[in-house]
């Protein structure tokens, strides 16, 4: 595996190295598949030998003498049928083995890659685009093991080729030499074809991606397209790429159209030469008619399977790239370290943030000198313009990332000293963009914890989600589909809120968690939170005044620092910047 990372080597060598990894991982399946394939190869050759033998010992003598021994006939039948059955067994072993091996390798890598995704810290995720990570776990894994499908076939073909070469030489050296020319010609032409067409295939693939992106975009905005009468222009935009794709496909088709007959003609022409020379060799008494038939038939049946060697080699570039990308994910290091401390207190938690500094890139801190404490049951609103560091602060409080300097303590314990999973038992967060699992409503709220339905309903009620959940076809058992696409933004946020509430957290962090909810519904949720029985220490990121007003105290963040703090009314009175920020609605009214 090591020879694949870093220094540049030939694709061919790297391709074989990937195959080596595959064989080391699945030696038994590979062996069975290869034996099956070798069996197939050997018996394909045997088929030609049987035909030659039958020509020599049955057909020609029978036609010459006008009679034949029944035992010879039975031998002919037995040989043909026996070879066919064994060959079928070989085919099943080869194909099933190839599939099994390929799918097992894929599954193994996918498990490993997703484990990495779960293990690696948030910082690592933030440095890699979502699309790239998704394709690492899917398309790249698939590409890495793409040569496995033709691998046993190719190995079997090599066996078949060697046997048939031996057989040809045994039959007649001169004819065998002619036959020998055919094999490399077929393999070479196949590789040539793959090389000529694969850039076009890649291009077509990316054009299909673009076409799909345009269609997605355009249909998503169907309403705007309609109301602005843009249907024609949109069609033109789509047609331009559709035509480009058409042209690439036509070019790829022409290349295929040119290579197919060449690859088919090479063995045919080889047979013609063998026949012509064969007649002369038989005439001169150097060889028997049966040998000529055998060699001709060998060329006919071996030529096509030989192409699999070309297919295998053609998969190498894709495979090597995929393997490298997957290896990069698997080699990534860094993991959040946990201590052994526990949080045993009951009731609302205390939160202390001590002289905290955090930067995504060294040198430009997103947060600097943040210092505040929150007594049990108290609430604080984080208010600030976009990019003032509010969301980063919530990420630090929930320990998605660790501070560069300073510390965050819950009940006096530094978050870094807590054991794994301990923080989640006491602290719950509801992010701005709700993430839902492809699971039932219940699964999304409980996340697998053993929580009675009554408590789930209670949490949904507080989150004002009980109404629409009850209206879903299967209530709590309704599946929400991939990332909850069947729900509106506001509904998704409310399910995410219920997920936090059902855990009865001692510290609750709401990161603009009701932004997509109707103001009126939001008012009801906030009311329930404030007046509810289950008190918690509360940190809220908010824009709307009603949300801000819920908090005992406000931290006004500006450029990553605490610009001011105090009760909302005090800040309004003494800070013009703060007043500007939160009074936008009132300002509007006066303007109007």
């Amino acid at each position: 595996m090591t020879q694949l990372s870093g220094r540049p080597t030939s694709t061919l060598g790297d391709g074989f190295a990937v195959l080596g990894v595959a064989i080391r991982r699945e030696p038994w399946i590979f062996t069975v598949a290869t034996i099956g394939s070798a069996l197939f190869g050997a018996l394909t050759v045997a088929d030609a030998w049987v035909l030659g033998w039958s020509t020599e010992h049955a057909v020609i003598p029978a036609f010459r003498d006008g009679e034949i021994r029944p035992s010879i006939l039975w031998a002919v039948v037995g040989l043909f049928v026996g070879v066919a059955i064994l060959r079928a067994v070989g085919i099943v072993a080869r194909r099933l083995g190839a599939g099994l091996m390929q799918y097992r390798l894929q599954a193994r890598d996918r498990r490993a890659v997703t484990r990495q995704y779960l293990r690696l810290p948030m910082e690592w995720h933030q440095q890699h685009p979502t699309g790239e990570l998704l394709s690492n776990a899917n398309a790249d894994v698939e590409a890495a093991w793409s040569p496995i499908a033709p691998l046993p076939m190719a190995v079997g073909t090599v066996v078949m080729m060697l046997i048939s070469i031996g057989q040809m030489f045994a039959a007649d050296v001169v004819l065998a030499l002619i036959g020998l020319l055919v094999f490399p010609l077929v393999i070479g032409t196949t590789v040539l074809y793959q090389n000529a067409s694969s850039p076009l295939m890649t291009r077509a693939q990316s054009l299909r991606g673009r076409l799909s992106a345009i269609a997605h975009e355009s249909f998503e905005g169907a309403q705007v397209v309609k109301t602005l009468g843009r249907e024609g222009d949109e069609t033109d935009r789509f047609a331009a790429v559709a035509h480009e794709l058409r042209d690439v496909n036509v070019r790829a088709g022409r290349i295929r159209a040119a290579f197919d007959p060449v690859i088919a003609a090479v063995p045919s022409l080889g047979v013609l030469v063998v026949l012509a020379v064969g007649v002369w060799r038989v005439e001169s008494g150097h060889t028997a008619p049966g040998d000529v038939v055998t060699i001709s038939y060998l060329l006919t049946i071996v030529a096509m399977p030989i192409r699999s060697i070309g297919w295998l080699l053609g998969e190498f570039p894709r495979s090597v790239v995929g393997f490298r990308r997957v290896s990069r994910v698997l080699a990534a290091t860094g993991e959040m370290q946990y201590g052994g401390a526990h949080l045993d207190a009951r009731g609302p938690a205390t939160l202390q943030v001590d002289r905290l500094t955090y930067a995504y890139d060294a040198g430009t801190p997103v947060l600097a000198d943040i210092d505040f404490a929150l007594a049990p049951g108290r609430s604080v609103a984080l208010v600030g313009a976009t990019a003032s560091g509010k969301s980063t602060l919530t990420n630090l409080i929930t320990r998605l990332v660790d501070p560069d300097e300073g510390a965050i303590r819950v009940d006096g314990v530094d978050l870094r000293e807590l054991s794994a999973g301990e923080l989640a038992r006491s602290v719950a967060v509801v992010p701005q963009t709700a993430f839902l699992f492809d699971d039932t409503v219940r699964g999304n709220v409980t996340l697998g914890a053993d929580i009675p339905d009554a408590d789930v309903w209670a949490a949904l009620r507080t989150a004002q989600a009980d109404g629409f959940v009850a209206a879903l076809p299967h209530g709590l058992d309704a599946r929400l589909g991939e990332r909850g696409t069947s729900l509106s933004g506001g509904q998704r946020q409310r399910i995410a809120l219920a997920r936090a509430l059902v855990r009865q957290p001692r510290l609750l962090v709401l990161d603009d968690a009701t932004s997509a909810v109707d103001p009126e519904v939001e008012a009801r949720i906030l009311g329930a939170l404030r007046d509810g029985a289950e008190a918690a220490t509360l940190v809220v990121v908010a824009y709307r005044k009603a949300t801000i007003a819920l908090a005992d105290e406000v931290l006004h963040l500006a450029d990553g620092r605490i610009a001011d703090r105090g009760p909302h009314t005090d800040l309004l009175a003494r800070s013009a910047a703060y007043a500007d920020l939160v009074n936008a609605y009132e300002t509007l009214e006066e303007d109007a």
Partner: protein
Amino acid sequence: MSTAAPERTVGTGAEIAAMATIRRGMVISPELRDGLGGTLLLALIATVGQVVVPITVQKTIDHGLAPGQHADVGYMLRMGLVAAVAILATGVASYAMTSRLFTQAEKGLATLRIKAFRHVHDLPLLTQNTERRGALVSRVTSDVDQVSQFLVFGGVFAIVSVGQIIVATVIMLFYSWQLCLVVWICFLPLFLSLKWFQQRLSDAYGVVRAQVGVMLGAIAEPVVGAAVIRAYAVQARTQARIDEAILANQTAATKAQGFTAFSFSLGGLSGGLANAGVLVIGIWLGFAGQISAGEVIAFAFLVTLFVGPVQMGTQVLTDAQNALAGWRRVIGVLDTPAELVDPGADGEVLPRGPIDVEFRDVSFGYPGGPLVLQDIDLHVASGTRVAVVGETGSGKSTLAKLLTRLMDPTSGEVLLDGVDVRRIANASLRRSVVLVPQEGFLIDDTLRANVQWGRDGATDEEIAASARELGISDWLDALPHGLDTRVGQRGESMSAGERQLVALLRAHLADPDLLVLDEATSAVDPQLEMRMARALEQLMSGRTSVTIAHRLTTAENADEVVVVDHGRIVQRGPHAVLVDRPGPYAGLHASWVAQQAH
């Protein structure tokens, strides 16, 4: 409540028969028919190339290798030359056939794709909404690709296979009808069971596809949900769910592969049986002088022409079926009526100037559902501002869609300047009425291209002038790349508020006479919010406007407030009057005020 209107969904084409699909498909894409006769003729010639070798083998044995005769070297040479020329000629025919097929097919499919894309946009919003966006996208992408892929791999193979079997059969019949019968008896059961195998195979791959979907969803969770999974410490549970999906996918794929392997192996089995039969019976026929030794051997070569098609038959049939299904689905889209008929040239053209709006006894219900709007009578005098308020689901957004003719009412009529919207030419309607939706919709292009949606070919000066009038020049000027700024996919490089500004700029350039606004609900930066309100103010001046209001201030500033509840207008009048009167509006207002309070 009464229910209304039949289901309006996008057609799946499921009811179209195979031959009808092909016929309809060829009408839609006439390119497919162009030169088809010539292509098939070339295919036939190409196929002949496959039997050159068996015939040559037979001739060689009978004229050169068979015992008791001297090789006729001259004859052999001439024959070899003829065979070589035949192979080359058929190769050229094969090239011509394949490349003609590809060219015409790709041309035809591009036409199909583009026509279907256009038709999706011509469908009424209602019909579009019954389908998931992704499903509509796949109609114009993967469904068409499936047809294209089939032609590239299965299609050529199928044509050559059928030709190969026909030509081989003809040659066999020429040599010996008895032996030909033997071969057919060995292969017929397989040919007949192909359909059965294919059905099982396509079921097995259906399961695989479904499992791939589930697996892709599962492996996306640790990436997209990275923060939530960590915050709730549910790594173990997530991994268990992923492992389960990966395993299910692996199992389904292996099962399908096993079935493919089995069905593939049967071709060779039949080939072995056929060869044994041919030789034994051939020798017996030889005794009767009905066949020569060369001809018997030639049969063994001809049998190989049967094996390939049988081995690949199930796969090709499956591909063919999928391609046909894809084709049907695309045709299904084209067969779905574009219900909102544009009166076109016969339509009325609205005069310029603020529009007078009237809803006359309008009701609307989604197909198969209850009425969401009932007995709406509403007059909006030209140049006035109306705010429509009501709780979520009250029907206020439907009102906006009827007004912009994204849907037609189930009963009653919507009149603009006294003309039923259904009688107004589409071009005139789109010119005069502009809807600004909640989500500013952007395409992955430059800011300029996005703004120009409002007015085709608007110059940078015109755009700058609009921005100035709306009071957002400073925002535009502050962008590092100005109008060349790329907005990213779905405008993701811009904030929600900035996307709204683009939508307003676009609307201003479009210069409509009736402005319909669906106010954004989600919070944006307060400072941006304020700027947007000023821009809106500018945009609305001198036009009639109907705003679906989610904010108190919008209602307060309107000339008239219309309160909608459960699909009916329950209250209307200026804010100042309604706010002090006991009723629904006072209630809504009180809850707004409670939110604004400190």
